[in-house]
């Protein structure tokens, strides 16, 4: 596989042909924030947290789905990017009802960690305060749409790793919701195998173990990549 040499933040780095900027950056110890990206499943470039500047490119590009090109000059941490990332995080907080203090994922939440890393001390936008439901009809898991950021990690892991596709998205824009089967209560889903991969994949407290209390939802999303890697070796 051919190597590609290019620069990230004035640092000369190399990557493999076909590799994304995000993968190459991580291999070279350069941090790019992500939210919807999950190792082990397809990247969709939805959250825009990993946007980077590429010299000569008119637009910002999501690092998780942009392949490395020989000689490209990438910047991952400019004032412009930091500003956009903070706006993105603030909009995510304003869009639903995220109450960290009493959330099952408090202290173990990727959204919260990003907000801290980005220095979000307050939200400059009006909160939408949408009415969102909580579904704990499943015997083991629950989904709280107040905390969902529509990253679709649950949708992808259910489809690509478990091979079931219980999860999907219904509605558009602010009305979009992750759904189980044909928007039935999760407990009535006939396709769900109760495998819990969506629970592992969820970056916030949206999908949680039924009965979890404040801060109790600790999970290890790297297990998804482990499952995928293990299966690839066997098959």
């Amino acid at each position: 596989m051919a190597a590609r040499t290019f620069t990230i933040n004035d640092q000369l780095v190399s990557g493999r042909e076909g590799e994304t900027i995000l993968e190459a950056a991580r291999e070279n110890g350069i941090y790019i924030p992500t939210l919807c990206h999950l190792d082990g499943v397809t990247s969709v470039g939805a959250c825009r947290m990993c946007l980077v500047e590429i010299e000569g490119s008119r637009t910002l590009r999501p690092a998780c789905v942009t392949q490395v090109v020989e000689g490209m000059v990438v910047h991952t941490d400019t004032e412009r990017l930091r500003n956009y990332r903070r706006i993105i995080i603030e909009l995510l907080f304003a869009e639903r009802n995220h109450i960290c203090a009493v959330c099952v994922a408090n202290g173990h939440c990727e959204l919260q960690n990003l907000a801290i890393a980005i220095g979000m001390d307050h939200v400059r936008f009006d909160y939408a305060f949408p009415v969102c439901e909580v579904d704990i009809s499943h015997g083991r898991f629950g989904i709280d749409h107040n905390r969902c950021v529509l990253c679709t990690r649950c949708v992808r892991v259910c489809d690509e790793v478990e091979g079931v596709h219980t999860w999907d998205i219904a509605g558009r824009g602010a009305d979009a919701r992750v759904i189980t089967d044909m928007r039935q209560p999760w407990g009535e889903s006939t396709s769900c195998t109760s495998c819990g991969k969506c629970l592992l994949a969820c970056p916030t407290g949206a999908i949680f173990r039924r009965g979890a209390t404040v801060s109790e939802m600790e999970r290890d999303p790297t297990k998804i990549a482990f499952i995928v890697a293990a299966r690839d070796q066997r098959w």
Partner: protein
Amino acid sequence: MTRRILIDPVTRIEGHARITIHLDDAGTVQEARFHVTEFRGFERFCEGRPLWEMPGITARICGICPVSHLLASAKAGDAILSVMIPPAAEKLRRLMNLGQIVQSHALSFFHLSAPDLLLGFDSDPATRNVFGLMAADAHLARAGIRLRQFGQEIIETLGGSKIHPAWAVPGGVRAAPAAAQRAAIAARLPEARTTVLDALRRFKTLLDTHADEVASFGDFPSLFLGLVGPNGEWEHYGGRLRLVDSGGAIIADQVDPAHYREMIAEAVEPWSYLKMPYYRPRGYPAGMYRVGPLARLNICTRIGTLLADAELGEMRQRAGGIATSSFYYHYARLVEILAALERISLLLDDPDLDSGRLRAEAGVNQLEGVGVSEAPRGTLFHDYAVDPNGLIRRVNLIIATGHNNLAMNRTVAQIAQRYVHGDRISEGALNRVEAGIRAYDPCLSCSTHAAGTMPLALILVAADGTVLDTVQR
């Protein structure tokens, strides 16, 4: 001309409130009202949340007594899951509640009320605070602050944080302290005991020098409500309800707290966000009752530990049986700190705490559950209804400060009548009105958790009873 005196805000209490005093033509106090001006809304926005989150959410009602809500909520959860929690879990919950009683009572006595009691009700208001207390008696102030810190440390040791530990959960608790941590708590008990015994000794001398305050700080007959053990002993976490009148007669006993609605009804007045609970069989407002440290000591047959029972005996002797003056709340608070310290000492040595079984697991087995615990300020009720999956459908919370609402209003009027006369309204007199409220250690942020719209009005009443002016919020 009629006059209205407004005390706004009432200082050195937990929360926001004001008091209006109505004077007639002759300058005599006609009426006084204690207005609670906070609005919270917990009963409404908890609807739709999973049952398991309720202790963590309702603990946020208060930063002073989050543990009370944590425990009452977890107990309501236990009832809905229909579980017997493991013995270690119950004992650890008790330990945390005792830690909270120590810290909350220490805050009330040393930080908030000691400036009045030890520096004097008529002392300079600029220094009549905890800093003035430090200047006047650094040792006492330091000891009081350390006593509160000790109580907070117990909470932190068990729950991981001093404020809002989401540690008690439906079915039990999340973690147990290690033996070394328990030993660290035990090591601080002697100092705490010395502090409270010293405060008790000093407080008793005040009863002789402050006969006027004792007689006017809410000294009237009322009912007293609280939890007691199976033999009528002092309780703070479990047990059943007992109601005693000011003559000492037991009006109701061993009432299952789940049936509190048969005992308690709530009235609403347009001038306060704080509801007015009363003993249902006696009607409103005749069913006025008091809760909290004074009530707990008035209703119990004994405390059950050596030093505290001796102090209880002396308190009853001084009061002549049931203590009817709310000035005795301070006294009762100190006796309860002592009782809590003695019980903490016993609990720390309990071998059950090492069992490792802390949490009972179960699904939703009941659609309704009531959890009751004694908060530092009095009996706390959490009453939930859930759907079959465990999502909250209805929440009713009855908070200690609410129980005392009728009595606090009566106290304000009694003190105003004794100390406020026409144009000669001294700062010390106004301070006594506030101090009458402080005796109850009200927690207004807790007590105004309810949903609904209760407009707040300021009413100026003339001598002939006509309303001269109403300011509606």
